[in-house]
C-alpha cells in the first residue's frame, strides 16, 4: 500500500501541471459539495440597496460582497458557489451516464461483431456523431422540460459514442487474446469474462478522455443555461449568472466576467489533467 502511495506521489511530483489541475479540481469539488454551508450569503436573497456592487478591488465595493452583487443585489460569491455545484453535479453525472451508455453499447457491439446488431449499433453511433450536437440539445430541451435530469441526459449524448467506439474496438481486440480463450475454457461465462477482463483494459483508454469530456460538459451546460434553455431559475447555474449579467455588462461587467473565468479555470484544470493522462497512457511515448 505504501508502495502505491509512493508511486502516486512520484507521479504528482513529475507532472506539476497534473498536480495543479488536481488541486483546482479538489477545491472545486469541495466548493460543490459544501456550497450551501460555505456561502457567505443566501444566494437567492436580494438586497436592492447593494445592487450592482463591484468586486472588492474597485471603489464602491460593498463590505462582505467580495465579488460584488448582481442586478438585484444578490451576492455573486454565493451564486457562483451554487453555480459550481450545479455545473459539477451535472457534468460529472452526464459523463458517468455517457460512460455507462457507451460501455453497454460498445460491449454488445463488440461481442456481437460481426453481425446485424453490431452494424445497427454502429450506425446509431454514427448518427449521433453526425447530428450537430448543439442543435440536438436545443431540440430535445424544447421537447422535454429543461430540468437537471434532462440536462444530464442531453449532455451525456455528446460523449457516449466515443466511449462506445473505444470499448467496441477493445472488445474486438481482446476477444482474440489467448487469456480470454483460456478463461472460457475454464468455464467462465462470456458476460463474466467481459466484465472482468475487458473492463480492466477499458479504464486506461477512457481515463485520459474523461477529464476533457467533463470539461466539455461544463462548458455546454453553462452555454445551454446561458441561452436559457438549460437549468432554469431559481436553480443557479454559471450560465444563468452570465445571462443575468449580460444586460448590465457595460456598467457591471463582473457579473458576466466572473462566472466565465470560473468556468475557464475549472476547464483549464481538467484539460491539464487530461493532457498529462494522455501522455501517460500513450503507448507510443511509454517505450
Amino acid at each position, binding site marked *: 500500500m505504501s508502495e502505491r502511495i509512493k508511486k502516486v506521489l512520484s507521479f504528482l511530483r513529475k507532472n506539476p501541471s497534473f498536480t495543479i489541475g488536481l488541486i483546482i479540481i479538489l477545491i472545486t469539488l469541495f466548493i460543490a459539495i459544501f456550497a450551501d454551508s460555505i456561502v457567505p450569503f443566501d444566494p437567492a436573497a436580494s438586497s436592492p440597496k447593494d445592487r450592482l456592487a463591484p468586486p472588492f478591488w474597485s471603489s464602491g465595493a460593498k463590505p462582505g460582497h467580495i465579488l460584488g452583487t448582481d442586478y438585484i443585489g444578490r451576492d455573486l460569491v454565493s451564486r457562483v458557489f451554487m453555480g459550481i455545484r450545479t455545473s459539477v453535479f451535472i457534468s460529472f453525472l452526464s459523463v458517468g451516464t455517457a460512460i455507462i451508455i457507451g460501455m453497454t453499447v460498445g460491449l454488445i457491439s463488440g461481442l456481437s461483431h460481426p453481425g446485424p446488431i453490431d452494424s445497427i449499433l454502429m450506425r446509431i453511433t*454514427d448518427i449521433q456523431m453526425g447530428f450537430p450536437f448543439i*442543435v440536438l440539445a436545443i431540440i430535445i430541451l*424544447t*421537447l422535454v422540460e429543461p430540468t437537471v435530469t434532462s440536462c444530464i441526459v442531453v449532455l451525456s449524448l455528446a460523449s457516449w459514442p466515443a466511449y462506445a467506439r473505444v470499448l467496441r474496438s477493445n472488445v474486438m481486440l481482446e476477444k482474440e487474446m489467448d487469456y480470454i480463450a483460456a478463461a472460457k475454457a475454464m468455464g467462465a461465462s462470456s458476460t463474466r469474462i467481459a466484465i472482468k477482463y475487458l473492463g480492466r483494459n477499458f479504464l486506461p483508454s477512457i481515463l485520459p478522455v474523461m477529464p476533457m469530456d467533463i470539461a466539455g460538459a461544463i462548458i455546454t451546460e453553462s*452555454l445551454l443555461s446561458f441561452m436559457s434553455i438549460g437549468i432554469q431559475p431559481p436553480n443557479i447555474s454559471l450560465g444563468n449568472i452570465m445571462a443575468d449579467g449580460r444586460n448590465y455588462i457595460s456598467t457591471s461587467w463582473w457579473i458576466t466576467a466572473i462566472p*466565465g473565468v470560473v468556468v*475557464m479555470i475549472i476547464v483549464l484544470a481538467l*484539460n491539464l489533467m487530461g493532457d498529462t493522462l494522455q501522455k501517460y497512457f500513450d503507448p507510443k511515448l511509454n517505450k
Partner: protein
Amino acid sequence: MLATITRRILQGLIVIIGITVITFVMLRLIPSDPSRTMAPNATEEQLMQLKEQMGIGDPIPTQFVKYVKNLMRGYMGYSYFQKADVSTVIAKALPMSSILLLFAIIIAVVFGLLLGITAAINSNTWIDRLISGFSVLFQSMPNYWVGIILIQIISVQLKLLPSTGYKGIRYSILPSIVLALPMTAVLIRNIRASMMDSINQNFVKAAKARGIPSWSSLIKYSFRNSLIPMLTLFGTQLGVLLGNCVVVEYVFGYPGIGMQILNAIVRRDYYLVQGLVALLSSFFIIVNMAIDIGYIYLDPRIRKAQGGL
C-alpha cells in the same frame, strides 16, 4: 478501393436519413402548435386551414411521406414564418455562415501554423511556454463568453468593430475571430506536437546534416509530413466548429444558418429546421468522407500501395 468508397457513401446516406427521421419525429413531439403562434386569435376552423397550408395538417406518418416525396423532387418545403421556400432561406443564410467559417478557418490555420511552428522551433524556451500556455488558456474559455467579452471590449469600449447584426463584411470580422480562437488553440497544440514528432525523425536530421537550417527543414519536411494528422484533426474539429458557429451567431445576432436554426426551433418552423439540420449534418459527413479519400492522395506510400488510383 472503389468498394470501400461505395460503402462509405452508403453509410453516410444511412446516417443522413437517420438524422432526418429523428429530427422529424422529435420536432412533431414538441408539445406546441406553430399554427397557434402564427395566428394567436384564429378560430379552430381557421387554424385547421392554416395547418393545411403549413403542411402540418395530416397525421405525422402522412406528413413524413409527403415530405420525403417532396425531397425526391428537390423541394425542401416552405417556411411560413419567413414566407419563403426553405431553399430560399438557406440560400440567403448560407453565404453568411460560409464567410464566417471561411474567415475562421483562415485565421485558425494561419495563426495555428505560425504559432505552432514557432513554438516547436523554440521548444522548451519561454516563447514556446508562452504560446503553449495561451493555447491551453484559449482552449479552456467558453466560446460564447469570449464573444460577449470581446463585444464589450472591442465594440463597445474601443469602438473598433461593429458588435451585433449584419450590415456589411465588417460585421463578420469579430464573430470569425471568436469562432477561430478555440480552433487556433487546438491547431497550435497539434501542429507543435506533430512538429516535435517530426524533429526526431531520421530524415529531418539527415536534412540538417545537409545544411538545411532547422527552421527550413521543419517547415518543409514536417509540415508536409503532418498534413495527414492535420486533416484528421480537421475532420474531428469540424463538428466542434459547426456547433460553435451556431453559438457565435447567437451571441452576435449574426443572420446565418445557426441563427436561422435557433429561430426555427423556437418558432417550430418544422420544415426549415428539417432542411437546416440536414444541411449541417450532410456537410459534416461529406467533409469527413472527403478527408478519408484525401488520405490516399496525400501520401505517396498509400498511393503506391493502392496501385496508382
